[in-house]
């Protein structure tokens, strides 16, 4: 980081022996605590089940069984659960963008009557711990008021509540607020309607914030457990997380471990590719320096 102030807590040199010892110790400890568990998992998943039950444990597999991954994929029918998860996650993402971007734009730039009241009512929901709403939410999706449909085992039960995300609205509105109104007025003078202005002027400028909101949405939906557990009582529709915990008690340990690796891979890949955006999203909202 170039904007980092040179002086920090310690004033000592960064070339001496003391610094090198601290640096190397930190590397070793960090690798042991945060990387080794992953390596241990990947290796464990390639051991035969008998070898995993032995004490003392082997570090490298005595018998290498990379085929465990394929076997786990087939035994637990992971392909199906991957597709279910992708479907649920993609839907949650699309609905959040499709519903929350126009809403935040309206609150920021169109400013209707009661707009501020609506915004406050949305932001208040951020103050409520989501798990305290589990029971009434569940009863709501079993019989959605007014329309009267039952959304149990329907991915819409994940998608629609996901769109009621005040944090998205807050992030997007704060970004739109910074776009000069003169710019939008100029476009309107040229005869552009509100939709055109959003589509042609605002969205191209909003790419960074759209990336942050998208990644937050995808990661949260992929990691979610308790809500999909309640929504999908039909095993064939379950997401990867829900299916894995259902299989865990009666799956051979080596195949379960292989399943864990496969379930973790997409998120690790997303992280490696979008690291910058993910870390930007982390410090985006609640906290300022």
């Amino acid at each position, binding site marked *: *980081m170039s904007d980092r*102030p*040179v*002086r*920090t*807590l*310690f*004033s000592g040199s960064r070339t001496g022996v003391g610094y090198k010892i*601290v*640096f190397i110790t*930190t*590397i070793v400890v*960090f690798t042991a605590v*945060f*990387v080794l*568990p*992953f390596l*241990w998992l990947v290796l464990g998943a390639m051991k035969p089940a008998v070898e*995993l039950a032995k004490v003392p*444990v082997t570090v490298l597999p005595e018998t290498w069984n990379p085929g465990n991954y394929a076997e786990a994929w087939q035994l637990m029918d992971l392909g199906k659960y991957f597709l279910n998860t992708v479907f649920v996650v993609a839907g949650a993402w699309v609905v959040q963008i499709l519903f929350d971007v126009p*809403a935040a734009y309206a609150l920021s730039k*169109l*400013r209707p009557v009661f*707009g501020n009241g*609506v915004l406050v009512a*949305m932001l208040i*929901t951020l*103050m*409520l*711990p989501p798990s*305290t*709403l*589990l*029971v*009434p939410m569940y*009863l709501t999706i079993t019989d959605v008021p007014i329309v009267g449909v039952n959304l149990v085992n329907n991915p819409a039960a994940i998608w*629609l509540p996901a*769109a*009621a995300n*005040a944090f998205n*609205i807050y992030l997007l509105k704060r970004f739109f607020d910074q776009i000069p109104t003169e710019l939008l007025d100029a476009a309107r003078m040229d005869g552009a309607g*509100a939709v055109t202005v959003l589509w042609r002027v605002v969205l191209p400028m909003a790419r960074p914030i759209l990336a942050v909101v998208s990644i937050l949405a995808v990661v949260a939906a992929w*990691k979610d*457990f*308790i809500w999909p557990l309640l929504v999908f009582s039909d095993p064939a529709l379950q997401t990867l997380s829900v299916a*894995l*915990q259902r299989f865990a008690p009666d799956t051979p*340990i080596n195949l379960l*471990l292989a399943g*864990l690796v496969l379930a*973790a891979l997409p*998120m*690790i890949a997303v*992280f490696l590719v979008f690291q910058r955006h*993910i*870390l930007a999203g*982390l*410090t985006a909202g609640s*906290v300022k*320096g």
Partner: protein
Amino acid sequence: MSASTLLRPAGEAAPDAARRPGRRPGRLRRRVVENLTAYGFLCAALVCFALFSWYPIVRGVLLAFQQVNFITDPEWVGFENFERLFADPLFWDAWGNTLLFTGLALVFGFFVPFLIAVLLNELRHAEGYFRLVVYLPVMLPPVVAALLWKWFYDPGPGLFNSLLRVVGIDGPRWLDDSTTSLLSLVLVATWSNLGSATLIYLAALQTIPGELYEAAELDGANVVQRLRHVTIPQTRFVLLVLLLLQVVATMQIFTEPYIMTGGGPDDSTVTVLLLLYRYAFVYNDFGTASALSTLLLVFLSVFSFAYLRITRRADA
């Protein structure tokens, strides 16, 4: 609230109003159209908030005083649900466990990330690597982390006791022993989550102007004094905010005990949310479950409002 419309100097608005000859239908029509357009943009999100956020909030509180059975209409039962809850010995255990969990999680999850961030802020090499690996566990789906650590905790061939055996220690029984089970859950939760707190602290530390340290050093302050009088005051806001967020998050612990212990052994890991899940989705007693979630809501609101006040003050 738009500052520009509120604070527009009166002199600017007045001539405009004076020029307007009474009511002009064109202007009114434009206002209506503008508002309709705006609410057109808002309606999808509004419907979602109304059905899946605002309505459940109200319903949750009402449910706490009702009994539902899906056949007849909900019946008002006064404080019966709460009485049933208070009579359940597990209710008190669950609160005790959850508070103990939160306390332990703060010891590890609040102080450790700060110390790590302070350390990382001093290092001038491999900064990208540190930031990458500390955040890796955060990306793991909680179910994967829980199942992985359950395997690590296996008293026989598990990773932890295998490592302890190497140095000649007979390891504990971790999840299978009611004295260590809760602590074991704290360790997983800390490992999975400390990356985000660490990186938020690191970002805050990097905004501290170097001159402050320089000045403190010129005044003869040693490292501990500089930490106390420069680092901590400069990051106080972030520390406080994360403390509150962490209390609210850890009080809602569910996935780890649900997957790793199921609440056992001897109910040592029954948390408030696990008990809530049992009442609602095992016993189908939604009224008592709602009474419990209402209590949790009231308890956590204290922290939420403290958070709101602190961040508001910082915004102003």
